[in-house]
């Protein structure tokens, strides 16, 4: 009986795929449940194809960028809170790891508890006073916090001022194996990143994740249904912060040097772009978006001066024509056509 059902569903999928052509074929591939494993496999095989130090460097950086996008996806994609200073959490993680490991000459891995605690604190400090604000105020406050974090790192002596911290000890050394070796570090990063992406995706399907999506769709209705919206939003913030902190820890041990210049608004905007273009709320899409944002510039070296201009225009175009991103989460509200939007605007008295 069950077997019959499944074959039938396969047939309908195929029939629909034929009906809607290439796009549906593509999405049926992407919706396959093994796609994550395939992607991980490709990531693990990459060093066999290309193992120049330059390529490994790029790929490790891209993997770290994926963690950031996954973390921001919790905040923006799941919970609908626009955070324009997300890079501040990367900074908190990187500086915590860098300062502690350098001061005590510890491998960076051992700073993990401190990094997590500092990021939870940072999430609380930024989130607690601001999450009661309206969404657009929240956006600008997070922007302000991001700048304050950078300015603070630039001015304090413990963070090394404008020149930052350099000579951070390696990630870990066990016997003869130094994890700082580019290939080993790449594998380490990919595995940690895969774990974090998976965890974030599972989180999105948990009870808390459903609460986040409810808050995103309609905060007042969520509140009326008994969801403690403030607490739920704060949790989204804290999870986002911890993911950022992990990214920061990897970032610090990958580069072994950090400076305030790495944490400017541009970086926050790039992470946001990865989340938005990939499809807010859909972890697979976000991973793809992050890879695109971090790897495309390597292929588009000739257009480097127009790169960010293009990104900016792309953001506007995506929001106008495809507000759910290129690859929206399954079951997302169907995008509104322009006419529907105008109708809704009229109904709301154009207030929203």
């Amino acid at each position: 009986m069950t077997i019959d059902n499944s074959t039938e569903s396969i047939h309908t999928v195929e029939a629909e795929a034929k009906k809607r052509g290439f796009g549906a074929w593509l999405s049926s591939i992407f919706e396959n449940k093994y796609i994550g494993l395939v992607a991980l496999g490709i990531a693990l095989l990459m060093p066999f194809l290309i193992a120049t130090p330059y390529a490994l460097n790029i790929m490790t950086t891209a993997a770290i960028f994926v963690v950031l996008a996954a973390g921001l996806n919790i905040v923006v994609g799941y919970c609908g809170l626009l955070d324009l200073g997300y890079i501040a959490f990367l900074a908190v993680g990187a500086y915590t790891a860098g300062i502690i490991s350098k001061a005590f000459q510890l491998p960076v891995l051992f700073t993990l508890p401190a990094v997590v605690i500092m990021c939870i604190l940072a999430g609380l400090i930024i989130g607690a006073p601001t999450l009661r604000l309206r969404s657009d105020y929240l956006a600008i406050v997070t922007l302000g916090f991001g700048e304050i974090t950078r300015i603070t790192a630039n001015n304090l002596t413990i963070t090394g001022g404008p020149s930052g911290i350099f000579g951070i000890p390696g990630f870990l050394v066990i016997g003869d194996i130094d994890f700082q070796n580019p290939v080993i570090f790449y594998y380490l990063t990919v595995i940690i990143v895969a774990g974090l992406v998976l965890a974030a995706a599972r989180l999105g399907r948990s009870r808390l994740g459903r609460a986040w999506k409810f808050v995103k769709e309609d905060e007042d209705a969520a509140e009326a249904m008994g969801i403690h919206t403030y607490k739920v939003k704060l949790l989204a913030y804290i999870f986002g912060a911890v993911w950022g902190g992990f990214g920061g820890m990897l970032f610090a041990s990958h580069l072994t040097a950090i400076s305030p210049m790495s944490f400017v608004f541009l970086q926050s905007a790039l992470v946001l772009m990865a989340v938005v273009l990939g499809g807010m709320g859909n972890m697979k899409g976000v991973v793809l978006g992050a890879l695109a944002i971090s790897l495309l510039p390597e292929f588009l070296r000739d257009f480097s001066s127009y790169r960010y201009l293009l990104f900016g225009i792309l953001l506007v175009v995506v929001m106008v024509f495809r507000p759910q991103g290129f690859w929206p989460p399954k079951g997302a509200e169907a995008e509104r056509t322009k006419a529907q939007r105008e109708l809704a605007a009229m109904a709301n008295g154009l207030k929203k």
Partner: protein
Amino acid sequence: MDQATQVIWDGLFVGSFYALIALGYSMVYGIIKLLNFAHGDIYMVGAFIGYAILTSLGGSFQSLGLFALIVVMMVSMLLTGTIGVIVEKLAYQPLRGAPRLAVLITAVGASFALEYGVAAIASPNPRGFPVRLDGDFVLVLGARVTLPQIILMLIAGVLMFALDLYIRRTSTGRAMRSISLDMKGSLLMGVNVNKVISRTFFIGSALAGAAGVMAGAYYGKIDFLMGFIIGLKAFTAAVIGGIGNIRGAMLGGLVLGLVESIGSQLVGGQWRDAFAFAVLILFLTLRPTGILGERVTERV
């Protein structure tokens, strides 16, 4: 005492720049509840347009000094106003009625496009502004006050006064106020809503463009990211005064200038920006309606 008056004067001077830019933020927010991130970049575009005109017209024009500057400022205001309208038509108008998150992200995209568009056209390196306004100072109550400072503040004051008159006395101004109260109602009463919104963008952007030219001439250096921090600060000023409130934005600009100037005197200049944003966060959490704003209950 001398130092105190100097700090206050500097604060008021910088504050009048903030006020000019804050007006555009506040007008747009008051009417369509849109946080226009690209506004600070319009200020930057204004400075670059001024630079382009002054360099292309050459030395004899530049030697006219203040007169040349005012002419350039007018042209630059027209152009930035037009750019503001174009941004509104392309990026914001199609999204009217869309969720807030989408509109905010669009605004970030527009800001990005303007910044890096200018960087691609004019090269990312900072430029020296061809006309510098500096001159002898006179001592007023112990503060060093230069003539250009007075002239720039006068221009800012005249522009703000004209705007205040425009909004209170003309029919367009009345339409703007009615749209901010009830957009649907205004539509039904025969107000051409889209046209009035475009005009709002034009005026706000023109004021920002004027501020851009003035800042270029006063500080002498322009670059494509100059609008980012000042946009954030102008938003702070608009919030301090009560966002959506025109006179509040002017007041907020002056207050922010003063607070910043006094604050950086107390804790050191390198903390200046952090101090301003801390004020923003304090205001938003403690009194989000600002000094002059009325308490509004959000309707569901």
